[in-house]
């Protein structure tokens, strides 16, 4: 591992400090590349540690002030962690399936038994079971491993939205009851938000909990304020501390919901490409906004740039 301070808005002082602190000048162009806004990126909290996958994988134990580069088996497109298993990191790779670390990213094992070749563009760990892993295989479907990645099986085809199958770009297992003995798996797609019960009966729109009552009674449906239609949802996050609180990263900004995805409000108007939330504090968010990693400790009302700390 190599230590490096990330200056997301490079200036002479930061560059010099970074170069001196690591003595690895070759890392700087890599970071410059990683900071471009078009690259796939992923964020996750492993306890208090922040993981950032963009270009490479970087780990910060101090709220983003300094970072350590971690080796990975391949290019990481997506990340997942679990509150009940510190150190567990699941990484979806551009090639080679899913990799799993149990020591916070220091070492990895590749998990591909039964998983077809392809790009794993989204991963999630079941909120109630850290041995249950979900992976979205681009152009194929949603796969699951019930044995911590030892074997994989197809869970369900991709969601059908706007008359076509859509790849989940983001997945989140959220501890909200489905009424079917399980919880919901939310998916952000290129055209919007959808969700499926973890029994995998069917993908369906996010609706208020009392929507069925209104339907049966013939009343007006409850109010909703969905995410902007037709816009890719690049990242989703929810904290076990308050699962009804959700965050979504879209090009139009960083959005938040307080009711499990029915009503959304914009919390930042800068293009957001990744978001993560602390497992014990739903107001502690890390997000890539305009290509810059920012931290909010108040649910997105205010933000600070980690590079400035």
């Amino acid at each position, binding site marked *: 591992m190599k230590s490096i301070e990330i200056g997301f808005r490079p200036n002479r002082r930061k560059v010099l400090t970074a170069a001196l602190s690591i003595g690895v000048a070759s890392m700087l162009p890599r970071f410059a590349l990683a900071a471009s806004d078009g690259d796939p990126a992923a964020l996750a909290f492993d306890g208090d540690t922040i993981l950032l996958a963009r270009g490479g994988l970087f780990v910060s134990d101090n709220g983003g002030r300094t970072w350590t580069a971690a080796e990975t088996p391949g290019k990481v497109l997506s990340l997942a962690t679990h509150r009940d298993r510190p150190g567990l990191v699941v990484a979806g790779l551009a090639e080679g399936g899913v990799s799993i670390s149990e020591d916070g990213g220091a070492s990895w094992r590749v998990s591909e038994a039964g998983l077809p070749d392809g790009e794993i563009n989204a991963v999630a760990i079941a909120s109630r079971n850290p041995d249950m892993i979900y992976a979205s295989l681009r152009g194929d479907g949603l796969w699951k491993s019930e044995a911590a990645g030892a074997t994989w099986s*197809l869970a369900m085809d991709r969601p*059908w939205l706007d008359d076509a199958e859509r790849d989940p770009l983001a997945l989140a297992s959220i501890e909200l009851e489905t009424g*079917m*003995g399980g919880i919901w798996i939310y998916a952000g797609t290129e055209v919007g938000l959808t969700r499926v*019960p973890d029994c995998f009966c*069917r993908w*369906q729109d996010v609706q208020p909990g009392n929507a069925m009552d209104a339907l049966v009674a013939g009343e007006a449906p409850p109010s909703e304020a969905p995410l902007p239609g037709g816009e890719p949802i690049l990242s989703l996050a929810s904290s076990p501390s308050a699962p009804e609180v959700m965050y979504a990263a879209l090009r139009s900004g960083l959005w938040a919901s307080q009711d499990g995805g029915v009503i959304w409000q914009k919390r930042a108007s800068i293009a957001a490409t990744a978001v993560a939330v602390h497992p014990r504090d739903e107001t502690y968010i890390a997000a890539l906004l305009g290509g810059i990693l920012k931290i909010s400790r108040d649910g997105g009302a205010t933000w600070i740039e980690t590079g400035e700390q």
Partner: protein
Amino acid sequence: MPMNKGPKDRSAKCTVRRSVHLAALGSALATTGVVVLAQSEPVDPRVEGLTFLGEPVLASEVTAGQQLYADNCASCHGANLEGQPDWRRRLDTGRMPAPPHDDTGHTWHHSDRMLFQITKGGVGAVVPGYESDMPAFGEDLTDAEVAAILVYIKSTWPERQREFQAEVSANDTGG
């Protein structure tokens, strides 16, 4: 048509259950041609460990439901409840194939009330706007017949799935 909720829902449940019992009993008698006079022995035994909408299930209901399933459901969901091949993969139409109703599927994750609503009113009765090849059987089957099909399906599940589904049904508050 989805069932009503609250007190009306409970009333509807009772009506369904009474109809099921009477229809099943009549069917059993007509089939066997036997008139049972001895009231000390059960005419139609309950199925151990199986309920529907909170009430016991009779063996004759399961028998009647098996035939109704064969007549109305098996062509898509399989004679042995195995579902259509490759049922997790979408059809060219964008719709999902008929899933299995045995323990390999997800039917046992749904409450009695939801299973009844789906069978009677179609999937759209519980997921508004959802497009499915499954028709709403409420136009062709009585409530008692729908219930009989579901108790037959439930009777085939292993103990673990039955217990799980019973808990889901018990926790289903109608939301």
